[in-house]
């Protein structure tokens, strides 16, 4: 199958759906868009997130994951935006359109065979994956019963199967916390959640609602030092770690269990982007993008968890809408030329990264959202914004935590007010 469109969207999860919808609202005809989705339905990971708490920002109500996804799927259907399910994208290459412009997306599909989609713009919305046991260098045996939290979630919520009965969880990422509650409600015994860092990687509300409410202990500064069981997990030993994150001898505690769940971070899934030659950010493991969420490859935009891992899907939708609108403007030739060097954004002193990492003054809208995460827990701190090394403003923050995404909004008029502005720096300051 060969098809020519204006915008190809890679991924039909929350990011891809919101991006496609937004592109239509920006004036792209729906049949000039194609969403390529690997699974047999739209909605992405939201389909297995049956807990509530989604949509508080976007819809001002508490929805479950599938309900939240459904709001976007309905819009896609209303607008009759074409999508191809069970389509695994295997390659994105430049120069796919006549005249050597645009991009060609190649996918595989059982009915269509190889699918080649030529597009003027591509929106990367592939999401992320979980960090597995092997990447954590956890010593011990390699029996059945070691799952990432998301895999366990899929088994429980979509297949109706229990991954185990006596559970130790390593990592306090949100999916792990959600699964601690879910498994408890299903009759399993969650013995402990161990977290390597001295702070949780998840949202405060999840710690309260998923652990505290069920009396599940959270052990900060702890890690797994041994896994026993040749066939199936029989026990997991955890130990306290020092400031160097190495286990402290003598602090080991062995927990009898049949399951170890891992919730130790998410990694944007950028194999396609890397192969295309998109410049990557070493911190986020996502593409480097400018104010338009455009990557280093012209016409290729990124949004959602493939760009950087979000804490709330509402922010994914918001970001994806921006990427979709910008891709539409790109296709319609509405993105202004800008030969001037962009203003770079530097993350420093506790600010781990920013998205975007540069701004074109010519292209930016009146207000520019800058999203970032911090690398530690801070109380009574602030985010200082500097223009070319001079403090512009410091925003007071009572609490900053790595588990929560932060944002600042910059006004175009403020940036234009600095003559020859080259750099904006964001840093954490403590009072």
């Amino acid at each position, binding site marked *: 199958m060969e098809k020519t469109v204006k915008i190809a969207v890679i991924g039909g999860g929350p990011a891809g759906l919101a991006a496609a919808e937004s592109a239509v609202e920006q004036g792209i005809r729906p049949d000039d868009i194609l969403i390529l989705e690997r699974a047999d339905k739209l909605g992405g990971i939201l389909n297995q997130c049956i807990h509530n708490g989604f949509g508080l920002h976007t819809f001002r109500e508490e929805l479950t994951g599938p309900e939240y996804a459904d709001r976007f799927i309905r819009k896609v259907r209303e607008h009759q935006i074409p999508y191809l399910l069970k389509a695994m994208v295997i390659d994105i290459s430049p120069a796919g359109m006549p005249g050597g412009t645009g991009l060609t997306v190649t996918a*595989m599909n*059982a009915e269509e065979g190889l699918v080649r989609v030529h597009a003027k713009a591509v929106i990367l919305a592939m999401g992320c994956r979980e960090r597995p046991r092997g990447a954590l260098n956890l010593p011990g045996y*390699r029996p059945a019963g070691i799952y990432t939290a998301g895999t366990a979630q899929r088994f429980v919520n979509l297949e109706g199967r*229990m991954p185990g*009965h006596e559970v130790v969880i390593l990592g306090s990422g949100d999916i792990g916390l959600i699964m601690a509650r879910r498994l408890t409600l299903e009759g399993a015994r969650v013995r402990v959640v161990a977290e390597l860092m001295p702070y949780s990687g998840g949202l405060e509300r999840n710690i309260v609602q998923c652990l505290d409410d069920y009396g599940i202990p959270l052990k900060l500064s702890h890690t797994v030092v041994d896994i026993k069981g040749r066939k199936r997990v029989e026990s997991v030993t955890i130990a306290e770690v020092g400031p160097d994150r190495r286990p402290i001898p003598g602090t080991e505690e062995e927990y009898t269990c049949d399951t170890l769940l891992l919730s130790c971070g998410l990694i944007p899934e950028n194999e396609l982007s890397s192969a295309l030659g998109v410049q990557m950010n070493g911190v986020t493991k996502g593409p480097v993008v400018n104010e338009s969420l455009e990557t280093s490859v012209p016409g290729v935009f990124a949004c959602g968890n493939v760009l950087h891992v979000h804490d709330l899907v509402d922010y994914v939708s918001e970001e994806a809408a921006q990427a979709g609108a910008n891709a539409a403007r790109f296709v319609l030739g509405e993105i202004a030329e800008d030969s001037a060097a962009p203003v770079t954004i530097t993350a420093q002193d506790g600010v781990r990264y920013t998205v975007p990492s540069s701004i074109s003054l010519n292209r930016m809208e009146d207000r520019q959202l800058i999203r970032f995460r911090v690398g530690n827990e801070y109380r009574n701190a602030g985010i200082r914004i500097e223009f070319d090394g001079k403090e512009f403003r410091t925003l007071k923050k009572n609490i900053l935590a790595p588990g929560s995404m932060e944002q600042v909004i910059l006004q175009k008029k403020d940036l234009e007010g600095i003559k020859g502005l080259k750099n904006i720096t964001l840093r954490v300051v403590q009072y």
Partner: protein
Amino acid sequence: MYDVLIIGAGVTGCSIARELSRYRLKAAVLERSSDVCEGTSKANSGIVHAGFDAKPGSLKARFNVAGSEMMADLSKELDFPYENNGSLVLAFSKEDRKTLEALKAQGEENGVKGLAILDGGEVRRREPNVQETAAAALYAPTGSIVDPFLLTVAMAENAAVNGVEFCRNCEVRDVKRAEDGTYRLRTVNTEDMTEQTLETRAVVNAAGVYADVFHNMVSARKLHITARKGEYLLMDRKTKGFVKSTIFQCPSAMGKGVLVTPTAHGNLMIGPTAVDVDDKEAVNTTQGGLETVLQKAGVSAMNLPVGEVITSFAGLRAHEDGGDFVVGECEDAANFFDAAGIESPGLSSAPAIGRSLAGEIAEKLGLPENENFNPVRKGIPCLSAAGLAEREALIREDPAYANIICRCEMVSEAEIVQAIRRPVGARTLDGIKRRVRAGMGRCQAGFCTPGQVEILSRELGKDPGGITKCGTGSGLLTGTTK
């Protein structure tokens, strides 16, 4: 009455089985695990050694050099991944340099071709990531890498096609020699615990770390095998090209030291450690072991991409006290043939051990030739290795090729189904992994486990609750939700 029963379906047992299938006989391979390639054969360096390490005149030297010479042709005949990438032994000191000279002389005596000593500059020109401190290296152009899983599986499949039975989940509990010189093997099925006694004219003992146990059941000349643990770290295929050849350090009394090598699939692998352990089941990794691997590999290579580690594992070498392979008919037990103490270079030697032992057995038992022997086995067409046009053709032929189950290694439903349906097919998640690499990639089966469980359940006609990672006791699911 069987003609031959082979204990152990590792690479050695499967090689012997395949070579025996060149003859007309009734033979079976008895394996206690749920699959072939479940012991030492699944957790090793995947190296076809050139053959300069072993002492001249030893069985290790003889079988290594012969096996290494057979491997390239065998890889074509049986269609398994093999690459002649060459190997380097690095020298960091004057003593090391002397060791290189000694290894070179020893290799030449063993019949290894093309050995040469390179200076440090030449080493780094070939391998830019080798440490500056490496002053010289012994280059062995015949050093190669192989997929140890598919080597074993391919030999098993081919043996099965040519008439050898494979009994998995079949643990041999006792071997007795009857008055008439035949043998009685008492076995237990590890799934349903039913016992059975099998009669056979000859026994092949290819039981890995347990080969001493079976040998000692029939012989007064006792063997003693120690399990020598080796821990490894495996890195993402993104690291492809970090080194092209297999990089060794100078060997010690405990073995060939920590190596840095590409795998036949383009991963980077470092390891192994060498620590003797009492427990012959202790395939656990340890914090100390993994740190040792990283530290020692760092002596050979700079800028090791440690952030790209996707898994770690440990294997057990079967080290016999005598330090050499024990291959051949047991002196005081006629028709009991040992392939014992098969530690490194066991993988490299397997084709030659199989050829030699099968010949010896056939002669002893007077087995006629099998005119119908088919030496050729074709592998499962691999989607990820195929070009675009080939992929299109594969999908047209079988649309299940477009249904990607393992996204990291791009393994389709079609390949998984074939892995299950083949002779000696996969019955477990690990069995699928070793045959078609589903779950072998960077997410380590996080994404594809549910999909694999579904396919296994459908193909085997079993409830998903009965699907295991590696046989009895390793169930993946513990029940249904409320």
